[in-house]
């Protein structure tokens, strides 16, 4: 048994954990970061490849929220967390959500101006910027379609650096984690925290299990003065529940359910990146954007369609295909439930009839946009979904997005603990301190009070920076 002693323990090294650890370490504290997944040297794997999925994704990407329909989701499980596998798109929280959440959840000092200040400091570290030059063809499809229809679209900023010619995503493994270690923090990878150790109203440490490089596992105990749980919106509530902390923990889960179309264009598209344009005409309830479209993704999309006879011909032309999505801000919600004796929590999500209606509308709007951009064939992510070649045919889709036939996924997962002074709704105070415990804080996507309708990384990191600054100021 190995025992580690530290002043500040940060559990999880993703968007929330990395910011927390860097700020604590740079303020002179003794910091240990524990990450369940492995350390993978940045830049050593092809983005969105099968190898990356097997190595960096939790459950190799095979996670799903149970429900009717189920919603597949992806979480990173490596040093840097989901920032190592996402698109790096960056969008600050719209001011009206900050105002609405401040009122509804009674969150202290949660003004749009305050959050923007923290976002700005994070953006400097992440080199948040726009692509220099013209967008790639896959992204221009969205811009062109929106222009033709008179819809609003924007090119999103991204956490990318372009000074070496090729864009390099600024993940936590390239930014905040090196800052944390430069300031003296230690990262313990391949180490799964099983349970928090509690004494009265304090957490005194954690019980963990570390995978040895030569195989097998060893028990590890980490004693800490302060514990920050930053495992993401699925793992953080599960850890708290496993440790007997259950009040408003794990309920209120929010996703952005996403429905997709594989679109055949009259020309070849790029396939190594994610489109940086988004159509914001229907925001925040509905966002339209581009997804990664490698050969495997195109093959999956074609296989689901009702055009089995033409699939081989279409797949041979896969380089002209792009994958695009419509993501909704869901009215439904879900739960995370840790089951005793089982490592993985059970995740459930209930989509409302309103959500199904929004998804149908999203699919049809996305189809309109892609046809306006010049697409010649559209394959929806609906089982036996009709292949559409003209706007007249889009009417066929109005009845096809049923619970039995639609295939949904998401990478945006939030709100499973929630913060604020409204104790009937929240699991922590306005700064992530867990109710009833002196030295336990949550500082990740779990705290985001509701679905933001945009890529949540900027919101998660701004809140994490805000809460850590408050912690440091209060000591």
């Amino acid at each position, binding site marked *: 048994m190995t025992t580690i002693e530290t002043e500040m323990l940060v559990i999880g090294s993703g968007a929330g954990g990395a910011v927390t650890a860097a700020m604590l370490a740079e303020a002179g504290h003794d910091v240990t970061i524990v990450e369940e997944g492995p350390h993978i040297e940045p830049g050593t794997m092809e983005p969105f490849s099968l190898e990356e999925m097997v190595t960096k994704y939790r459950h190799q990407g095979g996670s799903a929220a149970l429900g009717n329909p189920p919603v597949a989701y992806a979480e990173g499980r490596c040093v840097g967390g989901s920032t190592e596998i996402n698109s790096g798109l960056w969008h600050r929280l719209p001011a009206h959500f900050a105002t609405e959440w401040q009122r509804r959840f009674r969150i202290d000092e949660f003004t749009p101006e305050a959050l923007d200040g923290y976002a700005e400091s994070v953006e400097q570290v992440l080199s948040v910027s726009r692509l220099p030059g013209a967008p790639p063809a896959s992204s221009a499809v969205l811009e062109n379609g929106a222009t033709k229809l008179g819809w609003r679209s924007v090119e999103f900023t991204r956490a990318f650096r372009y000074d070496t010619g090729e864009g390099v995503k600024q993940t936590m493994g390239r930014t905040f984690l090196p800052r944390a270690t430069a300031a003296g923090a230690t990262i313990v990878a391949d180490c799964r925290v099983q349970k928090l150790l509690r004494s009265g109203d304090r957490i005194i440490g954690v019980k963990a299990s570390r995978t040895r490089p030569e195989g097998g596992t060893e028990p590890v105990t980490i004693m800490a003065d302060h514990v920050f749980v930053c495992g993401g919106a699925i793992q953080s509530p599960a850890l708290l529940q496993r440790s007997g902390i259950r009040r408003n923990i794990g309920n209120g889960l929010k996703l952005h359910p996403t429905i997709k179309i594989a679109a055949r264009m009259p020309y070849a598209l790029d396939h190594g990146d994610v489109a940086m344009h988004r159509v914001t005409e229907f925001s925040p309830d509905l966002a339209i954007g581009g997804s990664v479209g490698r050969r495997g993704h195109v093959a999956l999309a074609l296989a689901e369609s009702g055009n089995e006879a033409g699939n081989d011909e279409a797949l041979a032309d896969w380089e002209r295909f792009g994958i695009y999505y419509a993501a909704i801000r869901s009215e439904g919600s879900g739960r995370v439930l840790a*089951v005793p004796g089982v490592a993985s929590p059970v995740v459930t999500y209930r989509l409302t009839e309103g959500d199904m209606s929004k998804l149908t509308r999203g699919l049809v709007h996305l189809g309109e946009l892609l046809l306006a951009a010049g697409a010649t064939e559209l394959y929806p992510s609906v089982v036996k979904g009709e292949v559409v070649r003209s706007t007249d045919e889009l009417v066929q889709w109005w009845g096809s997005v049923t619970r039995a036939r639609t295939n949904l996924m998401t990478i945006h997962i939030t709100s499973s603990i929630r913060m604020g002074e409204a104790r009937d709704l929240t699991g922590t105070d306005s700064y992530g301190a867990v109710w009833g415990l002196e030295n336990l804080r949550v500082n990740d996507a779990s705290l985001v009070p509701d679905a933001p309708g945009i890529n949540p990384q900027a919101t998660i990191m701004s809140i994490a920076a805000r809460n850590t600054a408050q912690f440091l100021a209060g000591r």
Partner: protein
Amino acid sequence: MLWFERQVVRALAQDADPGQLAAIETYVDGALRAMPEHIRLGVAAESVALGGWSKVDGLRRRSGGAAPGPRLGPLESSPIGPVRQYVRLIKSLVIFAQHEQPEPSA
């Protein structure tokens, strides 16, 4: 990977050469092992139940001279949601592996 799961993989990847098939089976096996326990348990239970159904169905069909192997068509269009999702799940793993496995080096 359970017996029926392997049968389904082989039925879905019937055009693959032996090397590709082995790589696909290895990937699907790894993906099934990596799943959350409750989902893997549900899939395994279905594999056992559908494997039993398939054996009975196979015996009946062989007496009529039909080809061996599981019939996926009735499963894919089953009125029972989890049965449809079972085939969809394994099919998606097979398709993704078929098209994303790196080419074997010469």
